[in-house]
């Protein structure tokens, strides 16, 4: 397996995508440093503790390349994925910005633009923020993403600005057997506020890889709502890394939904960079067939008066496999931390599997922290109650499964997204109960 893992990077690295036009020297250096690190790093295998339950080796066996030419996408193909509430939409096709599919509403103090444009406009905030949270120097996938960095989505919200309507970042995988490296950067300056929907969709059902990195800087007293939707095809590989840094009194609320991919891994790291921060980190993986969905989250309470709430749910059907590893670290100085984490898992079949590992590491003495995990099947008394009211067994199971999943989905403050996801869950659970 290790040989395969090594040859994966060897095969990959010579194919590094070209740098963006008029690339500033700092970006060239950033890419070069990441490439050097990618050469030195090793891709993970199940021998790594962090990948014990998630075997990435199938990824290393397939040959995937960054598409050389931009695929054509008809605007009508976007219809099912559009979010009417969104003020602006940046669409990326196989990792490249697609101006014809995007729509940007000018708003004072709010920049929503592809990376290339912010570079040509020499917005210093990009240089100050890019690769500052996810450096691409300590882990192979984010190193490759950074080495390949040529395009991406940038959202910059100036001080005290309220970007009221959501910003939709839609990453489409269009070419079969392609590897793409999406990158997103969100900077919410002091006292500002925004909602960003990061959305991964495939328009094909063949194998492919999305290796995405996002960075979110939440300034002092700023508030960011982050919705992450991973709804790629069930043959896809999806590796996502998100780094969030929250300054004093900042608020970060996220809901991550994983419905797609044959193998998906989401690494979320939220770091407290000031006192009095507030995090709500919710997640749902709803998978079936032979899908594997892995979420690794790391909440770093480094300073006093931080609050965090995390609810992660997995609904696992057929022979699918969900993994959750949620670490909450309360460092010695982080007094008065108030943190709670819940991992709730629903197994719909005998073959479904979940590995959940909540981890609480506390090094401060004046804190309020709790965590819990449950793994179970649908409650027989609930199923019976519904049947005693005339519902068929499958309708009863669908309704209960839906209710379990909807609890997370409903935390997304966007009605159209909630509705579409609920429809997707209904379709999924009904398929499940028929099979």
């Amino acid at each position, binding site marked *: 397996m290790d040989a395969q893992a090594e040859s994966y990077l060897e095969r990959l690295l010579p194919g590094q995508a070209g740098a963006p036009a008029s690339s500033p020297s700092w970006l060239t250096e950033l890419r070069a440093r990441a490439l050097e690190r990618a050469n030195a790093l090793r891709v993970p295998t199940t021998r790594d503790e962090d990948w014990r339950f998630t075997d990435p080796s199938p990824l290393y066996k397939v040959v995937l390349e960054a598409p050389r030419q931009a695929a054509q996408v008809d605007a009508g193909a976007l219809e099912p994925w559009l979010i009417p509430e969104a003020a602006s939409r940046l669409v990326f096709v196989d990792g490249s910005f697609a101006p014809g599919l995007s729509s940007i509403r000018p708003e004072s103090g709010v920049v929503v633009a592809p990376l290339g444009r912010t570079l040509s406009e020499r917005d210093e905030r990009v240089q100050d923020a890019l690769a500052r949270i996810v450096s691409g120097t300590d882990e192979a996938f984010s190193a490759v993403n950074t080495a390949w960095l040529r395009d991406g989505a940038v959202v910059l919200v100036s001080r005290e600005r309220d970007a009221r309507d959501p910003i939709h970042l839609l990453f489409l995988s269009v070419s079969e057997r392609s590897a793409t490296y999406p990158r997103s950067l969100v900077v919410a300056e002091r006292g500002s506020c925004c909602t960003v929907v990061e959305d991964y969709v495939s328009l094909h059902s063949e194998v492919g890889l999305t290796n995405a990195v996002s960075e979110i800087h939440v300034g002092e007293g700023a508030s960011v709502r982050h919705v992450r939707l991973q709804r790629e095809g069930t043959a896809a590989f999806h590796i996502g890394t998100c780094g969030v840094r929250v300054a004093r009194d900042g608020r970060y609320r996220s809901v991550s939904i994983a419905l797609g991919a044959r193998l998906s891994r989401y690494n979320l790291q939220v770091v407290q960079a000031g006192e009095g921060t507030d995090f709500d980190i919710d997640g749902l993986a709803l998978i079936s067939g032979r899908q594997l969905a892995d979420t690794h989250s790391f909440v770093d309470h480094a300073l006093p008066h931080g609050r965090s709430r995390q609810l992660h749910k997995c609904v696992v059907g057929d022979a699918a496999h969900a993994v959750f590893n949620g670490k909450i670290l309360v460092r010695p100085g982080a007094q008065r931390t108030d943190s709670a984490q819940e991992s709730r898992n629903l197994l719909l079949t005998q073959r479904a599997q979940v590995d959940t590992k909540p981890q609480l590491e506390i090094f401060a003495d004046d804190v309020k922290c709790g965590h819990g995990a449950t793994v179970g099947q649908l*409650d*027989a*008394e*609930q199923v*019976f*109650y*519904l*049947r*005693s*009211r*005339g*519902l*068929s*067994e499958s*309708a009863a199971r669908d*309704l*209960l499964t*839906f*209710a*379990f999943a*909807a*609890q997370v989905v409903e935390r997304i403050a966007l009605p159209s997204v909630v509705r579409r996801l609920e429809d997707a869950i209904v379709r999924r659970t009904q398929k499940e109960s028929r099979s």
Partner: protein
Amino acid sequence: MQRNALLEVRGLTAAVAGVEILKGIELTVRAGEVHAIMGPNGSGKSTFAKVLAGHPAYEVTGGDALFDGKSLLRMAPEERARAGFFLAFQYPVEMPGVTNSSFLRLAYNTVQGARGRDELDPLEFDDYVQDKLRLLQIDPAFLERSVNEGFSGGEKKRNEILQMALLEPRLAILDEADSGLDIDALRIVANGVNRLRTPDNAVVLVTHYQRLLNYITPDYVHVMDQGRIIKTGDSQLALELERRGYDWVADEYRARQAA
């Protein structure tokens, strides 16, 4: 078969985890009647109700229960409900995340559809349910909450009767519908049940106490003990039980058996 017999239970025996709880129940309920099944705790009253509803934890080991001439025991729980059998649970289960309104509408439409009647869309259903809410003095805000979640004891019982009002069963068994209710809630529940009575349906009240029977007058009162119905009388029997307890009935029964 007797005319108009809605339910005929003959020699019904049932076990849970290998232990026999019901030891040969005999009971006939005709349309238009109200029956009360009373008895000490552990006599098998609730088990009997759950067996009739088809609870999977209980294994029927013998006998039969005919509903409208057809064997209930061969029907899935949902088929029993669609045929017009209803159990108001002693402890209704909480279902976080399932909104009461969508649950009630789904149940209503499923049962209506099975009876060949029109289903209602959300708006039509909302109108329909308002009348029933008034009958049971239920706050409409109650519809937007998760089914039974965080409901008080009284709210749970009223929600059961609300379901009975919506599903219009031909035979309703109310398992301890009075337990945990204050006097006002008890009146509301009893009044609701009385209003839902017709010459074509029947009600079986399973209860430990006599007080519910002050509001709903039974035609028959049965005493259950150790998995059997050991005495049947009229509403006077309930008053006598209230006064004298259950022991004398059991003593009488044993004496009869010994003779």
